[in-house]
């Protein structure tokens, strides 16, 4: 019974998206009501499942004994699903306003809602094969969203995204085949599946682990496969906010958690060159992403580079291969989601109201759009890690985990993390400074008549800002939930 409900949660948005083509209008009230209802319904269903569903596995299709499509809603999946299900309705409301004048809004909402179902599939996948399938679907459903504007840049970005994602998935595929060939074909289990199947030589196992890490790392924009993400910031803001700061990129991180802690297990890799390699790449990406963000004057692209850096905070946590590192990575996964979404929403609101894309054009805008920039300030402070906002909490646990890990590379990583935090302060606060405190004669021209974005945009922003404060101040329950997931209590 419960297993059918699981399937329903995935199929509901998919069906809703497919039925959208029978609507006569391209945009407008009816479409919005319909999509909004479908999204909210799915989210309610998912939250119900998170709170109620037992942890049974459920076989959908059995291809061979080792290849099965299997759904299982375990604690880690619930965590990710919780993030997605909370943030999706907010983004849809925002998108209604943002896409108001778009001629192809129907196509947009079709693929957007499809992506919801597919992301839920990733959360609920019970084994590596199932997760891999949904992972590929996610690429397919989001490519049209990236090239929605159909400008040259958008099409080029979509092409890059498509090629890189498929290429990365091929690596991940090789890793998966290795696991299956070594008998690790059961459903995900905390601690790994390989311990009882020591067929392969250890160094081959490590090679395949790295392959998988980098393969899934493509979606998490791990250096050197990071370029697609900033390019993809040409997509409409709801897409950049939700998919390229949360759903898609965090699916990459999520898959790496699954691979590391639920398939290979940390015992085999910890303390070896394989751990050093993946951690070194994560640490380097942190620095690289933040530095590129500093250099980029295009507001949304800057935020996208910042995402590149922050995703590697999560991967850094994963690569520590300790329970504390795992927990800290998950914490940052949740908190970065809300923070970066808010930042993108603000950038989108300004883009929507004024058409300004570059940071240098923001001088003095704070006076005209106070709410948006107040929200952006909150997001900036949280991303830098000022207590008591949520970003501080995740950074605290990430760094104490690094200090606890007794791994020299992790100490270096901790230092790099703080350098990156400084870079974050620089690229976020210079933006904030321009908006609130313009120079004497440099106030941008043509601002008069600029108005604050409308309620459909500001309400999601305010809710997120409130969320950042509250999840920071009261982070104990979230931390407890995470500690239960990773087995710390």
């Amino acid at each position, binding site marked *: 019974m419960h297993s059918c409900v699981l399937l329903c949660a995935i199929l509901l948005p998919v069906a809703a998206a497919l039925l959208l083509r029978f609507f006569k209008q391209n945009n407008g009230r009816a479409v919005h009501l319909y999509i909004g209802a479908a999204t909210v319904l799915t989210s309610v269903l998912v939250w119900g499942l998170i709170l109620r569903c037992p942890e049974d596995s459920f076989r959908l299709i059995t291809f061979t004994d080792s290849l099965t499509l299997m759904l299982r809603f375990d604690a880690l999946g619930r965590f990710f699903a919780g993030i997605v299900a909370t943030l999706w309705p907010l983004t849809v409301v925002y998108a209604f306003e943002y896409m108001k004048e778009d001629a192809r809004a129907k196509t947009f909402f079709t693929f957007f809602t499809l992506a919801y179902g597919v992301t839920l599939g990733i959360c609920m996948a019970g084994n590596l094969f199932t997760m891999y399938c949904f992972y590929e679907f996610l690429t397919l459903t989001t490519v049209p969203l990236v090239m929605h504007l159909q400008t040259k840049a958008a099409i080029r970005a979509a092409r890059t995204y498509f090629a890189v994602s498929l290429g990365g998935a091929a690596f991940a595929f090789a890793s998966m085949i290795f696991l299956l060939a070594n008998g690790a074909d059961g459903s995900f289990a905390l601690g790994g599946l390989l311990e009882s199947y020591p067929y392969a030589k250890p160094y081959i196992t490590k090679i395949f682990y790295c392959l998988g890490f980098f393969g899934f790392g493509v979606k998490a924009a791990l250096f050197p496969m990071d370029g697609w993400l900033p390019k993809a910031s040409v997509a409409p803001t709801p897409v950049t906010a939700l998919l390229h700061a949360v759903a898609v990129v965090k699916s990459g991180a999520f898959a790496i958690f699954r691979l590391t802690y639920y398939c290979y297990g940390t015992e085999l890799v910890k303390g070896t060159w394989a751990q050093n390699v993946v951690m070194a790449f994560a640490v380097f990406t942190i620095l690289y992403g933040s530095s590129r963000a500093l250099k980029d004057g295009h507001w949304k692209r800057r935020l996208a580079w910042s995402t590149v850096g922050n995703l590697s905070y999560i991967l850094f946590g994963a690569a520590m291969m300790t329970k504390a590192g795992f927990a800290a990575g998950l914490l940052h996964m949740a908190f970065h989601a809300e923070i970066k979404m808010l930042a993108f929403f603000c950038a989108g609101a300004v883009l929507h109201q004024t058409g300004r894309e570059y940071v240098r054009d923001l001088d003095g805008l704070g006076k005209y759009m106070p709410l948006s920039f107040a929200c952006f300030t909150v997001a900036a*402070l949280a991303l*830098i890690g*000022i*207590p*008591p906002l949520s970003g501080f*909490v995740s950074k*605290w646990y990430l*760094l*104490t985990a*690094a*200090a*606890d890990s007794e791994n020299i590379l992790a100490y270096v990583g*901790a*230092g790099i993390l*703080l*350098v990156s*935090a*400084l870079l974050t*302060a*620089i690229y976020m*606060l*210079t933006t904030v*400074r321009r908006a*609130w*405190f*313009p*120079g*004497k004669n440099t106030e941008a021209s043509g601002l008069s008549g600029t108005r604050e974005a409308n309620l459909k945009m500001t309400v999601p922003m305010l809710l997120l800002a409130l969320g950042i404060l509250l999840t*920071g*101040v*009261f*982070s*104990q329950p979230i*931390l407890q939930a995470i500690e239960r997931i990773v087995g710390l209590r």
Partner: protein
Amino acid sequence: MIKTIMLCLILLPWAAGFLLPVLKLKNRRGKCALISAVLLLEAAGAVVMLLQKSAELTLFSMTKTLTVALRMDGVSKLFMAIAAFGFLLSGIYAFRYLGHSEREDSFFGFFLLSLGALMGMDLSSNLITMYLFFELITLLSMPLVLHDRTEESIRAALKYLFYSIAGAFLALLGIFFLARYTTTLDFVSGGSLNMGAVAGHEKLLLVVIFLAVVGFGAKAGMYPLHGWLPAAHPVAPAPASAVLSGIIAKAGVLAILRLVYFSVGADFVKGTWVQMAWLGLALLTVFMGSMMAYREKVFKKRLAYSSVSQISYVLVGLFFLTPEAAMGGLLHIAFHACIKICLFLVAGSFIVNCGKHRVDELAGYGKAMPKTLWSFTLASLALIGIPPASGFVSKWYLASGALNSGLSVYSWLAPVVLLVSALLTAGYLLPITIQGFFPGKNVTIPEKNNEGGILMWLPIIVLSAAAVLLGILSGCFTDAFSALANSMFG
């Protein structure tokens, strides 16, 4: 009751500071009355707190380890009293100083917000809370620096912001490791190191503590992260420069004091390379700051360099890790605040009333602005350390603490550096007085003016009188300071 007052000390200026730019009061008198009421209440609250023994209040717990809580002890009392009175006098002075400035609301707004954050920092009971307020002070006082919105001030403000944040992150690295090696993040006099956990990791811990103090030292203008201070303090309006130099920069001192004495404990660092390195950096800053001040011709910049030097006097006292030297440092915190605020307000008076920014333009102003220049002279004498003015007392304890410290080289090097720096201080301050009163023959004597009215000259006179009287009456409170210094050693 006492807990409510403690919370109000933070929330009242925040509420007022937030409302000022929102309300946009038309009536300037009403606005000034409101601001002075808030500042007076703060001062009254600080006095009430001074009379209390101690108080604690837990605000909220983010997670089990991360708690935001307030606690008042002897150190907080000292810093709180200085902040409340310094802001009160500077605030009153600012009413007139900013009389013709646009964006007045924004100035007073951030002025009060900074005060609230400072109070929070003074009352913090653990490292997390202190870090929170440390960052808030930076963010909220940065707008004071760029008040003029000129290119120069914006650049200086950003420099201030990024140096401070970089320092804070360096310190945060230390806090992460301390979280691992201490029994609690709360401040405990004498430190709370968990020696069992430390065993075998002493070297690592020493490195991170060293870095943490260098990081917090950014705010106190300590070499090598001092570069922002001479850029940022002078570009702010004079009342803001006064509190930035006299009080806000001391937040760095407080942070170092809390970290070294209340979290790590003086015993752990005593005699290690870390202590030597700190002393070396602080003494270098003392000398370098004075030297730069001596060469600088712009009045407020000269005072800013002087702050770099003087705040490191305090740090020298703290880094000797003996009660006597620490007591000298604590005394110098109070005296320097009083003196430096006075000097900056004097510099501001010359800018507003005469339009003079440079020290070599002040010849002959003794006749035109006698009250201002006399106050300047008294405060200068106190800063140089002429007995019986206040600076002498603190320097006496600093020097004798250094001599009795038992550290081989530093026990004589420190007094020598302090002496040389005192000579330089005389060299950069007294010529202003001499030229002001004895301009020579070929100088046209400027006409007498009203010195900005009572709102400007009264705070200056009060502060300069305090600078002298605190020295003469120091017998009344040296015992209290001595007890305070001893209490920091657990």
